[in-house]
């Protein structure tokens, strides 16, 4: 059983979101899970009810990636970009743009993996085109998902109380 370290989400500047989290695995494994499509499909599902249906990754400088999530009632959300920097197994910088472009232009995502005593700290910074774009990212894509996850929590709490 893995002890999960708490995920922290902060806004280091008015255009950025930074997430940090510790994983109980060497960084070679975390790195693989960050770009191999068959592995990404196992975890990067997004809100409850959604799954990563399509995933293509060409992990080379200038190479492209494309993700398509499928949700309830056939809803789809696509996102893609280009790899700018790759330092195995510690750093990936890539551009990101959603098909619906609700972030008002391309964002730049920097993934840094730091290994300490067999554990890996993940730091993911996403720099948006503008502050409005960043705030939009904080709010979008999760309205339905949040409602769904709250429903699941309610069910869970109800079950716990009944037990």
């Amino acid at each position: 059983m893995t002890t999960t370290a708490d995920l922290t989400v902060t806004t280091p500047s008015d255009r950025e979101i930074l997430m940090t989290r510790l994983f109980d695995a060497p960084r070679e494994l975390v790195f693989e899970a960050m770009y191999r499509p068959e592995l990404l499909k196992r975890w990067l599902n997004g809100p409850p009810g959604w799954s990563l249906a399509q995933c293509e990754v060409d992990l080379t400088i200038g190479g492209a990636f494309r993700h398509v999530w499928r949700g309830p009632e056939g809803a789809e959300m696509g996102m893609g970009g280009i790899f700018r920097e790759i330092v195995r197994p510690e750093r990936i910088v890539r551009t990101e743009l959603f098909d619906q472009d609700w972030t008002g232009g391309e964002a730049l995502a920097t993934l840094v993996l730091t290994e300490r005593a067999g554990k890996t700290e993940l730091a993911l910074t996403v720099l948006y085109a503008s502050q409005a774009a960043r705030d939009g990212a904080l709010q979008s894509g999760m309205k339905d998902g949040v409602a769904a996850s709250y429903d699941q929590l309610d069910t869970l709490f109800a079950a716990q109380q009944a037990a």
Partner: protein
Amino acid sequence: MTPASQLDATFTALADPTRRAILARLALGEASVTELAQPFAMSQPAISKHLKMLERAGLISRGRDAQRRPCRLEAQPLAEANDWLERYRQLWEANFQRLDALLDEMKAQAKAVTDKNQGKNQGE
């Protein structure tokens, strides 16, 4: 203000370290401009400018006492901004918990391969 523009205003106000320090101070109780300016190497007009921005964002309110006009913290917009961050965090935490499980599996596989290569038979 719409919820989205309120959130923009909140995050803009929070982007500045002086304004964050002012809010932290006001979390302890109301204070006058003079009191707020004290810990900073800043003029009162400079502090007043920050206060105007915080007031426009609805993060603070000012008392009516013409002489002192004490500032106090308005907790609601901050709580809402925090709420959005928390929802975003929960969404990603769900992803990362699946990743934890996957990494456990990958570690077990890597270990099995290593054990096999070393010709060991480690019963646990």
